[in-house]
C-alpha cells in the first residue's frame, strides 16, 4: 500500500545501519554462538545458506556472496535448543530489552541476548516470535503506539541480519497501554520502554 520509492530507499538505509551495528557487535560479543564462526570466516551475516538474502522481501541483499561458507546457522545445529527456552538460567530466559528515551536504537548490552535468540531462531525455522514494543507514558498516547512499533522493528531488523527469517517474526506496538511499572518517574519509564520477545505457544 505504501511502498513508495522513498520508503524502499529508507529501508535500505535502515538495513545498512543495522548491518553496521551487527558488524560492530559481533566484534565485541565472541560468545555469539553460530557454529563455524570460529573457523575464521568473517562477515558472514545472513550468509548461511544465502537464504536469508533470498527470503528477504525488502531486497536488502546483504549476505549474498559476502560470507561464503562457515557461518551458517544450519537447522538444528545451533548451540541452543528450544528446550532451553524453559531453562531460567539460560540466556534465552532473558526476553526483554530496554531502550533510551525517544530512541529505538538497540543498546550494546542487549546484543548478547538478541544474538542468543537469533541463534536459536535461525537454527529452528519453525519457531515463531512476536516482538512486542512498548513506550513510556510521556507524549501522545497514539503516537506512542507507532514509536513502540518502531522499537519492535528495530529488534526485527537486528534479528534478521543475524539470520532469522522474516516470516518467523511479527511486531506489535503496544504504546504505553501495557506498562510494566506503574510509576511516574524515570526509573519506571526506563522499565516501560522495552521490547518483549514472545515465543509462539508459550
Amino acid at each position, binding site marked *: 500500500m505504501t511502498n513508495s520509492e522513498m520508503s524502499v530507499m529508507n529501508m535500505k538505509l535502515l538495513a545498512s545501519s543495522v548491518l553496521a551495528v551487527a558488524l560492530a557487535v559481533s566484534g565485541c560479543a565472541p560468545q555469539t554462538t553460530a557454529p563455524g564462526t570460529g573457523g575464521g570466516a568473517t562477515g558472514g551475516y545472513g550468509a548461511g545458506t544465502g537464504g536469508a538474502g533470498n527470503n528477504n522481501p525488502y531486497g536488502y541483499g546483504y549476505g549474498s556472496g559476502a560470507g561464503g561458507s562457515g557461518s551458517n546457522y544450519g537447522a538444528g545445529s545451533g548451540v541452543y535448543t528450544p528446550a532451553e527456552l524453559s531453562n531460567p538460567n539460560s540466556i534465552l530466559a532473558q526476553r526483554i530489552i530496554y531502550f533510551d528515551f525517544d530512541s529505538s536504537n538497540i543498546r550494546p548490552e542487549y546484543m548478547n541476548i538478541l544474538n542468543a535468540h537469533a541463534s536459536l531462531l535461525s537454527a529452528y525455522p519453525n519457531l515463531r516470535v512476536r516482538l512486542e514494543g512498548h513506550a513510556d507514558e510521556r*507524549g501522545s498516547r*497514539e503516537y506512542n*503506539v507507532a514509536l513502540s512499533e*518502531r522499537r519492535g522493528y528495530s529488534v526485527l531488523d537486528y534479528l534478521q541480519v543475524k539470520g532469522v527469517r522474516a516470516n518467523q517474526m511479527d511486531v506489535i*506496538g503496544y504504546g504505553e*497501554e501495557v506498562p510494566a511499572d506503574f510509576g511516574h518517574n524515570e526509573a519506571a519509564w526506563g522499565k516501560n520502554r522495552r521490547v518483549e520477545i514472545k515465543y509462539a505457544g508459550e
Partner: protein
Amino acid sequence: MKKKLLTTLLLSASVLLPALTAAEELHIRIDSDASADGTRILVTPFSPLSKVIEADLQRSGRFALVDPTRAGGSSSPEALRAAGAEYAVVGSQSGGLDFQLINVNSGQAVGSFRIPSHPNQRRMAHKAADLVFEKLTGVKGAFDTRIAYVSASGPARNQTYQLIVSDSDGFNPRTIVSSRKPVMSPSWSPDARQLAYVSYESGRPVVYVQDLASGGKRAISDPNRSSISPSWSPDGNSIAYSVADRGNYNIVVANASGGGARQITNTRGINVEPQWASSNTLVFTSDRSGQPQLYQTAATGGGENRISFSGGYNAGASIAGNTVAMVQESGNTSKITLMNAATKETRTISRGSQDDSPAISPNGVMVLYATDAGGRGSLAVASDNGKAHQILYSQAGDVRDPAWSPYLD
C-alpha cells in the same frame, strides 16, 4: 462549600439513577474549583436538579456561582440583588422543569423555558444549563452531551481494560467494552449512536465500530495490519485512521461501514491521529520534521502543510471550530494547549505535568483531558479560558483517553 457541592452531586446521582448500575464501580467523583470571576449567577433551589445546573455552569469558566443561601431562600429581585447576583434562575419542577432566567438588576425575565420530563433526570438539568448558557453567552451549550473514556485496572501486565460511556460530567457511566487486551482511542459518530475505537483483542490493534444501543460491533480495518487512532467524519460516512506499514504509519480514509480505504498521506515515518477540522480537511500528527507536529491535508489527500509551530512537540489534536486542542511536550512535562487555527495564538490550559489526550467539547468551551492526580490516572476538564478546572477520577481504576460526543438531538 466545595465539599458540599460534591456531596450533593454524589447524592443526587445515586438517588436519581438507581437503575443504571452497569458501571457503578466506576463512579466518578468531581472536585470543583470555583472560578472567582465571570457573570454572577444564582440558581435558586427550585429543584433537586438545581445543583446539577450550578455545576454545569461553573464548569464552563464563564460564571461565578452565587450561593443561594445568601438570598435567604427568597427569589425576590431585592434579595437576589442583595446576594450579589447579576442573573438568577428561578422556577419549579413538576415532572418537567419550568424556569426563568432573571436579570436581577432590571427584575425582568430574559428567558422562560420548559424542559419536559425525561427518565434521565440529570439530562433535564443539563438541557436547562445549556439554555441558560446559550442565553447568556450566545454560544450553544454542550452540557447535555456524553463522553467516552478508557479505564484500566488490575496489576501491571495483567490489566482489564474497559471502554465506558457516561454523561459529560462523568455521571451515569456504562461499560460498553471490557477486555483483557488494550482498548483505546474512542471516537464518536456524529449522531452519537456509535463509537469507533481500537482494540487489541485479535492480537494487534484493529479499528472497530460499535453500536451503543445494541452493543453489536464489527472490525472496519484490515485485521492483518495494525490500525490506530480512528476519527469519524462530520457527515458520518467515513472514518479516518492510521495504518502501519513496517513501522511507518500513514493516514487512510475508509467507509464507516468498512472497506474502501484510500491512502491520504504517504511519507516514511509516523502519520497518526487524524481529526476532521471540517468535512474536507484533516489535521494529523506527523514526525516528518523530526519531532511530532500537527499538519493539515485535504481529506481526499494532497496539500499537506504544517500548522503547529510553537514548541518542539505538538500532537493529539482535538478540534472544535477554529480551536485546536493539542498535547504540547517540553522537557519532562506535557500540557494541553489550545491554538487558534487562524491566528496561531496558543494558551496552555492544563495544570498537570503529564497531561495527554485532549477532547474538546463540541462548542469549544471545555476541554477534557487525561492527567495524573496523586498517582492515579484521571480525567480533568478545563474551560477554554483556563478559569474552571475539575478532576474526575474513578475509585476503580486509572481513567484516560477521553472523547467528547457531538451535540445530542
